[in-house]
């Protein structure tokens, strides 16, 4: 599935699992789709498609939001939480902490929507859990 297909199919869905999904393509060297779930406007998911996988990434916070004195404690906490979080994992891109999920290119639209919704819910859950480590 490529980005255009995905954008069209998500727009066609009125809602999924009770959530309204809104998508907006972002221009650039590689095509990215910004998708917001329901009321979670502040935590959009960015979807890109490569040869092997569909990557869904939600930005959590930047390095300078992290309280420096408890940084390593937070990192350890994130490693511990990585497995219990369903379908998503923590990662870092540049100076930004992210939560992401990767799917096979052969995934159906329902799998992708489920992934994006789960990712958004996990993002809210994670920031709530890690709030004490943030400025």
């Amino acid at each position: 599935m490529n980005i255009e297909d995905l954008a069209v199919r998500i727009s066609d869905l009125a809602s999924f699992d009770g959530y309204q999904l809104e998508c907006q393509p972002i221009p650039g060297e590689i095509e990215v789709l910004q998708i917001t779930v329901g009321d979670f406007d502040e935590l959009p998911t960015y979807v890109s498609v490569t040869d092997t996988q569909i990557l869904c990434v939600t930005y959590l916070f930047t390095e300078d939001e992290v309280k420096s004195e408890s940084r390593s404690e937070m990192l350890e906490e994130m490693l511990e939480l990585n497995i219990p979080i369903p379908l998503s994992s923590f990662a870092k891109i540049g100076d930004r902490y992210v939560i992401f999920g990767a799917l096979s290119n052969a995934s159906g639209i329902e799998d992708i929507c489920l992934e994006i919704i789960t990712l958004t819910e996990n993002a809210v859950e994670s920031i709530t859990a890690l709030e004490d480590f943030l400025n």
Partner: protein
Amino acid sequence: MSVLKKIMTAVRGGAREVGELIVDSNGTRIFEQEIKDAETHLRKAKQDLTDVMAKQMQAGRKVESLKNEITEHEGYVAQALEKGNEDLALEIAEKIAQLEVDLAEQEEVHKSFSGHVVRLKDLVKKTERQLKDYERQLSMVKTTESVQKASAAITDNFASSNSKIISAKDSLERIKERQQNTFDRLAAAEQLEAETSDKSLEDRMKAAGIGDPDENSANAVLNRLKAKQK
């Protein structure tokens, strides 16, 4: 050095074109060519393997048939000897000697083909493993590149749309507020609904003279005062 380690070094160094740094100055293109070449080699090796396996089977069949022929002729020698025909027996024995030479030759050929098959099978396995490894490495490099490019596009988009990137805590605050609003609205609607239905029930009860009497009615006041005087 492992490809993951190379990626780590490149990303730490702030590289934007990881492919160039890791696999080739032409990015991932040459690496993809290498994979194609390896695939061609693999196909060729598999063809060779099937050819050699066919030849091995042929040699195997020849060995079998020679062995049968030898056994057969050994029987003939015994029969000739039984009949006292020593000359014929010698002639058959000569034939057997020739067959044994052929057999030894064919066995050598068979052995050589078998060795070849083993070597080719090893080669195929090795090439397959290498191909898998190349593909795995390429996929890692390409994913890194893709994530970096996507991330750049997202950052550029933020910059161009002038949308302020708010902190995670603020995001959370807003989301929670919105959720609380929704929740409050729902709760208020429920309460209103409950009150309306309670009220209408009360009204109907009162009309039917059921329940508490109206405390402000003249009768109620009089009763209260009478009770005080006692």
